[in-house]
């Protein structure tokens, strides 16, 4: 697989179809893999493909200049679909080297997202590496942690989030690592008006995380990078999953599936959207 991958990447670079290929190289800490940028065929020799290639490289396509080739797992392709849907890049400017993937690991454990994977073979790609893998319906409940919190009382929920988010140091790794957080200026960085004060305390942290998750509604494809990147091990996935669940239930939309579809938040349904349930 890796030989095939390297060959295809080299071909793209030597034929000048792309200016850079974004892939993985061996990391230097534990057995991590690390993002790698190949500008020449020689650089491609650094590339690896293994269980540790967990990073979602789609984050780099909105930063890269020129035509980009990108090694993408099924889940990463979902992010790319989202980015194209939102007109951040043109489909023609990216060559997707899709990889048939049967799961990646974080610190030797299967990544959470892989338990519910429905895209072992990416939805769209220009080149496919490896043989297509059929996706099976997962028997596990994707929204188990969400339901656990929903079942608490409002006071318990408040306490849970207050405790959980009090750990946050606002390093914004969750924001920086997210392929869909591409805004030039984040709401939390503006000073006039200053939506969220800079002080790190439970209240400000909660407001930040509420709005961060809210901004991801109908856009988050569940790659789990925010949670992986968080140095304080905050379960940020739960917030994003809650939003995804609500979007599915209320608007019948799943992000990262259809490149032609309008994200739910940029769309409406005159007759069927919830109305009387919560609006007087």
């Amino acid at each position, binding site marked *: 697989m890796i030989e095939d991958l390297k060959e295809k990447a080299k071909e793209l670079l030597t034929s000048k179809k792309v200016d850079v290929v974004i892939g993985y190289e061996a990391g230097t800490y534990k057995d991590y893999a690390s993002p790698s940028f190949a500008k020449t065929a020689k650089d491609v020799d650094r590339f690896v493909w293994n269980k540790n290639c967990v990073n979602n490289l789609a984050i780099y396509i909105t930063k890269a200049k020129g035509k980009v080739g990108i090694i993408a797992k099924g889940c990463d392709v979902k992010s790319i679909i989202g980015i194209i849907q939102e007109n951040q890049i043109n489909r023609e400017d990216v060559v997707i080297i899709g990889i048939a993937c049967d799961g990646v690991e974080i610190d030797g454990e299967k990544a959470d997202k892989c338990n519910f994977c429905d895209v072992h073979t990416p939805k769209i790609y220009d080149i496919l590496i490896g043989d297509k893998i059929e996706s099976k319906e997962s028997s596990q409940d994707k929204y188990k942690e969400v339901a656990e919190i929903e079942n608490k009382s*409002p006071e318990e929920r*408040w306490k849970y989030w207050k405790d959980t988010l009090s750990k946050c140091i606002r390093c914004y790794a969750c924001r920086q690592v997210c392929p869909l957080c591409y805004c030039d200026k984040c709401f939390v960085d503006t000073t006039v008006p200053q939506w969220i004060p800079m002080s790190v305390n439970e209240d400000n942290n909660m407001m930040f995380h509420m*709005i961060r998750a*809210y901004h991801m509604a109908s856009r988050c494809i569940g790659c789990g990078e925010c949670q992986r990147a968080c140095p304080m091990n905050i379960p940020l996935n739960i917030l994003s999953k809650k*939003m995804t669940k609500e979007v599915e239930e209320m*608007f019948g939309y799943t992000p990262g599936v259809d490149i032609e579809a309008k994200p739910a938040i940029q769309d409406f349904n005159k007759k069927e959207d919830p109305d009387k349930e*919560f609006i007087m």
Partner: protein
Amino acid sequence: MADFEPKIVGILCNWCSYAGADLAGTSRLKYPENIRIIKVPCSGRVNPLFIIKCFQQEGIDGVLVSGCHPGDCHYTTGNYYARRKFALMNKMLDFMGIEKGRVQFSWVSGGEGAKWAKVVEKVVADIKKLGPFTKFK
């Protein structure tokens, strides 16, 4: 708590709800004075951050967001987008553990002065029951 008088921020669209509130006034309808109104061009303009920002302020106990009825938007579709945003905001606030009723939504047209008075009465009564809002302070 009997003498608790909540302060409520009303975020109203210029074309319907603001006119509705105006009509309530010119019709000399009585309704609780606990609400402070901020006018915005359209309910579609209401950023969830407005709601969050309200709660950071000293003494604010609730927020009411109101716009034109679906189909009546001055900008044709603004309130349809707003409706989806509010639906999600509502779920988000609930999920974080903020009591139901702190943030309320309504459609009030320019002719519904009486409805406006009723909506405010209900919101004030709900928030009186919940008591002062001490989160995010």
